[in-house]
Every structure is written in C-alpha cells, then in structure tokens.
C-alpha cells in the first residue's frame, strides 16, 4: 500500500490514520448502542490511542544524533505545524481553557491573545535565525553565539527551571485523565501516564516525538471540535458555532442582568467543595482593567517566544524558509482549537443557565436538579455542587458551582450526547497532555545530554554513548516529574503560567539580542540570564509570601519584571565590557541571511 520514502508518503499515511480513527469512533458508537458499558468505552479509547502512539514511537527508533535531536531536519512545514500545535496545546489548553473562559470571561481571554500573539514574535524575531544557526538545542545557540561554558550552563539552568515547572503540570494532567478513564488511583495513574509518554520519545527522540505529535494533534482536534459542533446543532444554536453564536452571547448577557450576580457570604462559601466556582463575572463584557489584560497577554507572548520546547520544533524543518512558513501553520492549527474554546464556554453556560431550555437548571427546584443523572455523576466526581443558600427551594445563579474541567468534560453529557463522545474527549485530553509532556521532557533531557554532558563534561564522547546518556536522562527526568506530580503540590494552570514567566525572565532578551544586536556579548548575556531569572523568581517569592508587588505586576505576570531587569542588565554589562570579536560578528552576519551553510555542522 505504501511505497517509497516515508516523508513523501506522509499525507497518505496520516490520511489512513485519520480514517482509521474515525472508523474506531463509529465502532465504539455502535458498541455503545449494543450495550457496552461506559467504563469499557473509556478504557478502549485511551488504550487504543496510546497503543498507536507507542507503535509510532517504536517505528521511529534511531541511532543517529541528528535524527535523535532534530528529526533529521526533514519535517515538512504543514506536518511540523501540526506537531508544534500538539506540542503547544497542553492538557491545560484542552481541559481547563474553556472552563477559565466560562468563569472569568474577558480577564482570562488575555491568555488566548497571548498564547497566539507570541507566534508573531517567534516567526519574525527568532525561529528562522535559530534554524539557520543549525543548533540542536536552545542552549546550543546561546553557547555558540556568546561563547564559553558559563553562558551555555546558564541557558541550561533557565531552560530546566521553566520546562520542569511546566512538565509536572502535564504529567499531573495525564494522571488525572488516566485515573478517570481507567478507574485507578491517581498515584498509580501518574506512572501509567509517564510510561505512555516515554514510549513515544525514548527510542526515537525528536523523530519519534514529531510523528507521534502529528498523530496526537489529529486525535485532539477531532475530540475538541466534534462535541462543539454537535452541541451547537443539537440545541439549535447554529450549524457553524463560530459564526452563529452572537444571539446566544447576548442572551447570556440578558440572563445575567435578569438574575444578577449575588455575592455569597464567606460562611456559605465554606460549604462549597474546594476548586469549584460559581458564575460571578460577565460573559462577554469587559471585566478587567486595560493593564491587567495587556500585562498578562504580554507576559504570555514573550514567554511563548522563549520556551525551548516550542523553539526546538523549528530546528526540524528542511530550510529557513520552511521554518517561517511552519510557524504560520502552527498558529493556524492552534487557532482551530483556541477559537472554539469560547464557543464551547458559551454553549455550556447557556445550556445550564437558560430556563427556557430543557437542560437549564437555574430557576428549577433544588430537589429536581439533584435528581438529574448527570448532576449526580459529576457531584460524586466532586466537579458540581448546588446548595440552597437562601432557602427558597429553587436553584439561583449564585447557588450553582462547577469545577473548571467540567466545562469540557461534562458539557457533552449535559447536552445529552452519547457516552462515546465523553470517551473521545478523554482520549483528546490524554493526547494533548502527553504531546506537551513529551516535548518538554525531551527539551530538558536534550539540553542536559547535549549541552551539559557532551559540550561541557565529555566533548569526546561517541554518538552511541551520547544517545545512551540522553535516554537515561529522559527516564530520570520523567520519573522526577511524575514523583513531584504525584504529590499534587500546585494546580495545573498556575504552574503553566509560571513556566512562561520563568522562560521570558531568563531567555527572551539573550535570544532576541543574540540575533538583532551584534554588540551583545558573553558577559552581557550571562548577566541578563542570571539577573533576569533571579529577580523574576525573587519577585514571585515576595508576592507569594504576602508582598504587595508594584505596577500591578502579579504572581502571574512576574516575568515582566524579570525580563525588564534582564534587558537592562544585558545592555549595561555588554556596553561596559569589550565588544564581541570579529569571528562572532561575522557569525551573526551569516545567521542573518538564509543562504549558505549553517553555523553548526550537520553532526556536532
């Protein structure tokens, strides 16, 4: 069926794969009609998709350094775009984003703007130049551009801090989904998730991760879009929700005005289980100050352009030109999901709020709502709660509480979709969390094995030995991440945002100025990375321990302070020390034109 080169056959291979996955969904739907249990369907979805990823991971095994680190630099633009989109959209984007929009409205939507706008910076400031450089990892660029082991080491430290903060959240998310779908305790589910993640990346490195991420993107986008379109059609909101929900959005605003936002007393709120929230903010009105919105968006944009697991995806394209186009495709594939999240939030909120819809619960009697099947299920799962605070026997807007995850996980059931959709959503969430975790673990392990071990500790190491070290590190970092995830210290979304702030504090200006400012030198870069990371982390600790902060910079946007310090430190220190030598300046000139040889050789 498939002849010739794998790369030439990609559209066919993934076409067959997509068809196979759709057929699998239909088979499951038929099985459900014939009486297959909900639990069995959930297990089938997760087990089937993870098995496919593992097979792809095995088929992509390699013993070559450039295949392991940069997938042989032959990933076509569109496919690299899909892989980046999967790499990018984490468990948080998939499971928590619609919920965040549902509860917080406009103030939260700064994340949508930030997590997409950052790609403009990636495309115009960095990706094509780093591709021309020919590096394997981000610290590889810093170490070669600025020279010296200390600058390389600093970059490795910033990368590790940012990526490790992020990866524990992702392993946590795979654990949550695996524990729900497979019905096992969270502490074990975390390790089941981890093993699935390692199956994709261990044998093939970047090559394995690339081809599994493409497969994971296909699963997650089907799992996200299918329910949105289905629900929209089912409740008669329009066959193409993105263009047709204006009436629903204004209806929600009308209902908000009718019900009013009643503030609950602290005493009443004590009854509500931890992690659940009520609707307290307007859905489509502007509910945040301009600076609160802009500072969060700006922090996420600069963080996007500094996160190494995204940047290294553009090292895998065949050319500089392809790297630029590939950023566009990445954002297009991300756009498909991000523009659907607010629509899902709208549909979910309206179906619960509107008393004229059969699914609406506000205004119904408490006893009636408590008798609904889905309410009982999700109440048991600790994701829904109602309480009759004012004792009038009916559910008011301020008396209904829900967990953020429930918007994605429970809406299909509330709208009366068959269980097969819930199984599909679980598989999608698993794909989203796994693909991001894989990218992150690989970014850390590659930086440690290539930059720390090979470039600093043992430059004479053989390729075979380097790749053994890389794989051992991959497993060690994975287990360290899983162990911390099993302790359940932080929430998923908070730690994701911190990762962006850490990355921008330490890496944004050293990367950008490395290309755009010839005068930037080693001393400046080291000062920028060290002081940026330290001041950012210091600000976070200060605010967390009760500090008041300044200029409206919160614990979610501390990177703005960190990167400002980094910029000043880098410019001042660069200017008071000697300018870079002629060889370095020539290297920067060469990076700025796409033609000619890359700075670092094919095998290095």
């Amino acid at each position: 069926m498939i002849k010739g080169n794998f790369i030439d056959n990609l559209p066919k291979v993934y076409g067959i794969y997509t068809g196979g996955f759709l057929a699998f969904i239909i088979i499951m739907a038929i099985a459900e009609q014939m009486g297959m249990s909900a639990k069995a369907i959930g297990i089938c979805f997760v087990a089937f998709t993870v098995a496919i990823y593992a097979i792809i991971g095995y088929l992509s095994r390699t013993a070559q350094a450039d295949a392991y680190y940069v997938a042989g630099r032959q990933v076509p633009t569109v496919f690299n775009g899909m892989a980046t989109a999967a790499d990018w959209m984490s468990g948080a984007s998939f499971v928590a984003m619609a919920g965040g929009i549902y509860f917080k409205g406009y103030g939260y939507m700064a994340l949508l703007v930030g997590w997409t706008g950052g790609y403009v910076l990636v495309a115009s400031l960095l990706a094509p130049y780093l591709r021309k450089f020919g590096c394997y990892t981000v610290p590889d660029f810093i170490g070669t551009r600025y020279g010296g082991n200390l600058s390389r080491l600093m970059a490795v430290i910033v990368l590790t801090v940012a990526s490790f903060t992020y990866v524990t959240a992702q392993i946590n998310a795979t654990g949550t989904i695996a524990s729900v779908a497979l019905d096992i305790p969270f502490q074990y589910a975390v390790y089941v998730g981890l093993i699935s993640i390692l199956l994709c990346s261990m044998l093939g490195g970047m090559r394995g991760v690339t081809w599994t991420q493409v497969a994971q993107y296909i699963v997650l986008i089907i799992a996200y879009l299918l329910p949105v379109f289905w629900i929209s059609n089912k409740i008669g909101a329009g066959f193409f929700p993105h263009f047709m929900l204006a009436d629903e959005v204004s209806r929600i605003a009308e209902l908000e005005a009718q019900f009013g936002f009643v503030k609950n007393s602290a005493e009443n709120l004590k009854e509500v289980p931890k992690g659940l929230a009520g609707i307290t903010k307007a859905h489509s009105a502007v509910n945040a100050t301009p600076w609160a919105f802009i500072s969060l968006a700006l922090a996420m944009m600069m963080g996007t352009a500094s996160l190494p697991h995204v940047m290294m995806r553009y090292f895998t394209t065949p050319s500089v030109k392809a790297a630029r186009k590939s950023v566009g495709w990445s954002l297009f594939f991300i756009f498909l999901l991000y523009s659907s999240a607010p629509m899902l939030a709208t549909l979910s909120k309206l179906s619960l709020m509107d008393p004229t819809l059969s699914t609406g619960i506000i205004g119904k009697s408490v006893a009636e709502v408590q008798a609904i099947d889905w309410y009982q299920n999700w109440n048991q799962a600790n994701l829904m709660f109602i309480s009759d605070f004012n004792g009038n026997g009916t559910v008011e807007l301020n008396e209904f509480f829900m967990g953020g995850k429930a918007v994605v996980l429970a809406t299909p059931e509330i709208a009366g979709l068959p269980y097969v959709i819930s199984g599909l959503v679980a598989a999608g969430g698993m794909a989203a969390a796994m693909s991001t975790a894989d990218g992150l673990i690989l970014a850390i392990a590659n930086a440690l094995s290539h930059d720390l071990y090979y470039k600093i500790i043992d430059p004479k190491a053989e390729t075979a030995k380097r790749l053994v070290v890389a794989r051992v590190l991959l497993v060690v970092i994975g287990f360290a991440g899983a162990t911390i995830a099993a302790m359940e210290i932080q929430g998923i979304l908070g730690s994701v945002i911190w990762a962006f702030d850490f990355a921008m504090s330490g890496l944004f200006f050293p990367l950008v100025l490395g290309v755009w400012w010839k005068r930037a030198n080693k001393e400046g870069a080291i000062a920028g990375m060290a002081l940026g990371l330290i001041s950012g982390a210091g600000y976070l600790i200060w605010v967390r321990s009760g500090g008041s902060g300044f200029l409206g910079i919160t614990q979610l946007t501390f990177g703005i302070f960190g990167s400002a310090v980094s910029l000043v430190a880098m410019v001042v220190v660069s200017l008071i020390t000697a300018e870079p030598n002629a060889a370095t300046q020539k290297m920067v000139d060469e990076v700025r034109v796409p033609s000619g040889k890359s700075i670092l050789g094919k095998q290095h």
Partner: protein
Amino acid sequence: MSKQAQHWEKTRGLLMVTLAIWFVFSIGIFLFGAEMNEVTGPFGYPLTYWFTCQGSLGIFVILIFWFANRQEKIDEEFGFSERGDD
C-alpha cells in the same frame, strides 16, 4: 552599502512593520476594550469580545504568512534565498 547591509536594512524594515501590526492587535486595541465593546462587531458579537476570541487570533495567523512571503521576496531580491525546495 554592501548587498548584505541592504538586505538587513530591508529585513529590519519588514520586522518593524510586522511588530507594529502585532502591537495594534495584541496590545493597542485592548487599551480601549471597554469602549470598543459597545460596538457590534463581525457576526454580531460585541467588538472587543470578538477580537479576543477570533479577531486578533486570526489576524496573527494571516500576519505570519504575509511576513513569511515578504521576507522570501526580500531574500530573493538580494540573492540570499536557499537553493532547493521545501
């Protein structure tokens, strides 16, 4: 001026234009979020709301492809484009 310096000057010019457009739709318009939301935007959504869930996001996608094409033209003009296709 050398060919390389001219190429870099044009590249920098394109960067400035790209970043200016980026700034308007990621930061600029949100300075007036509250006022703009009174206006009805595309498909009948309130305007600021539409920008946060579709408008800005879509403009970024188009902007990147436009930027990539312009940069390719600049590279070709000075003979710095890569050989071979992608």
